[in-house]
């Protein structure tokens, strides 16, 4: 199932580093947790390199879900590329960071050049 791709879905801690993703409740857009709120731009996502930071981010995500700002927050394992961009290691999450591969004119790939 696709949910297996989500970090921590098998009960183990996700492979670090990680970012935290969710969808905005009101619009449905994919968003990422930053140091001070949520961003549409995956390049601005806050990166956790240790388990403690990841746990804090997860708690922030859960609080945002409880406050009806986002739905379904979860940690996403990433690799930091040469430009500093936290690229998701799984192709499903990489697709969420860009948008449909068949529509380069639509989604984050069109709005944010990475």
């Amino acid at each position, binding site marked *: 199932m*696709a949910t297996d791709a989500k970090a921590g879905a098998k009960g183990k801690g996700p492979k670090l580093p990680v970012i935290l993703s969710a969808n905005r409740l*009101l619009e*449905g857009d994919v968003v990422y947790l930053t140091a001070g709120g949520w961003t549409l731009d995956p390049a601005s996502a806050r990166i956790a390199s240790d388990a403690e930071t990841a746990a804090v981010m997860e708690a922030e995500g859960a609080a945002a879900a409880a406050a009806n700002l986002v739905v*379904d927050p979860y940690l996403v394992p990433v690799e930091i590329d040469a430009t500093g961009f936290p690229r998701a290691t799984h192709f499903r999450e990489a697709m969420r960071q860009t948008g*449909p591969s068949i*529509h380069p004119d639509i*989604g984050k790939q069109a709005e944010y050049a990475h």
Partner: protein
Amino acid sequence: MYRYDEFDERFVRERVQQFRTQVERRLDGSLSDDEFKPLRLKNGLYLQLHAYMLRIAVPYGTLNGKQLRQLALIGERYDKGYGHFTTRQNLQFNWPQLKDVPDILDLLADVEMHCIQTSGNCIRNVTADQFAGIAKDEVEDPRPTAELLRQWSSLHPEFAWLPRKFKIAVTGAEHDRAAIKVHDIGLKVRRHPDTGATGYQVVVGGGLGRTPMIGKVIRDFLPKDELLAYLEAVMRVYNAEGRRDNKYKARVKILVHEIGTEEFVRRVEAEYAQLDGPTVNAPESEVARIARYFAPPAYEALPEDSAVLDAARRADPALDAFVAQNGFAHRQPGYLALTISLKPVGGVPGDMTSEQMRAFADIAERYSFDELRVTHAQNLVLPHVRKDDVPRVFEALKAAGLATANSGLVTDIIACPGMDYCALATARSIPIAQEIAKSFADERRQAEIGPLQIKISGCINACGHHHVGHIGILGLEKSGKENYQITLGGDATEAAALGERLGPGIDAEAVPGAIETIVGTYLKVRTDGEAFIDTVRRAGLDPFKASFDAYVAGEPA
């Protein structure tokens, strides 16, 4: 076409208002996500990979121009300017925002449309033969039956929380274009061999997904006026005994398989005997009222042949190819049905822009009695075109980018949204379809290959019907990469069959070459005039397996 009566209108409007307040309560926190999710799903609203997705019911695949224009407007105002026709004859928008959905539902209600029961564990949109009321091999138009079932199943209190989703398809023709044998219930209108009375053959327990099954005939002839009571008995047996402990075993196909067809029939008949049929079955007057909406349009009395079309075809090879490939013989002399392919080479199967919708609405209004159909193969149909008008229609279609002459050919590929959009997908589908189509772009070569249905799903849920593709492609994840399994010999018609695996899964880049290899083997093995599926049936899988294995091993063909 069916028109809403006062009850339909009120029911749909009330539902929109209910959903509007449900959204408000979700946004103010009165409803939790767990509480809201089943409510939004019952209104066709999913949360997908990138955004929400709204699935709009197109009952038995029939639309008019005004409805298509409204879909164009919604696509433009609330989405990204396009929609996607699905294998269930529905339309999906991929980018609506939750805050806008109540307004979208109001716009749909304005044109007698809705999203009710396009998701959730209920009876879904009833599908039908796209050539209903047209085909020469038809016993009776299946749409009045489908509309009756729509009314019966809409908010049926007993069947609102079934063990799992439930899909019904209806055909009135000898040749099955509605894939009735791979639905939870398939109905075929037929005549009693002795009395000539109209009734139904009832097929139950077909389905695709992770456990594909061909449906079993549980009644060879059900008198027409007994339909609703008999289906109510089927639904009651399923509702009571379907597996609610395991969602993967919860479809009626599993129940039929586990207890056996004979036992299932016994239980249905026992339930049926206890039902008070006359209180369940629709009154004759209501059946007749519904049927009147589907009376044939006001055809002109025309000769069968059109000198205008014949001359135009001689003068224009592109028109000639289009009519030969996408034309479908109409029962009314002087008319033709045209399949409008939504599969341009390199395009997204089933996608249509708002501009194309408007152009097509114009064409349907002007040349096809304001009627169009959606096919389960993700194409559209102009059901009633005067042969004399076909050259003008072809020019209008060309101008809208809708004149691809590939209906039923190797580039007319069914593909689910796959991982480009879908949260359940394990791999992409659409780019695979695009690459295969590019590989076979040459129209002469497509014609030489002949009828060949490729169907692609991006996960085992099989929305792309891969099990019943002549060539089926299933996208999975293997070791963190997309991987594709190829099956051969599937068939969705009255000769329904499930495809068999050809060999190991392969990478995305290797798929077009694998299809080339399979087609190459077919061209070598086929006899004169033998269609692909017939060659596979006659020759078996062995020659295809051998060439596929050699291809996978990297050996020269």
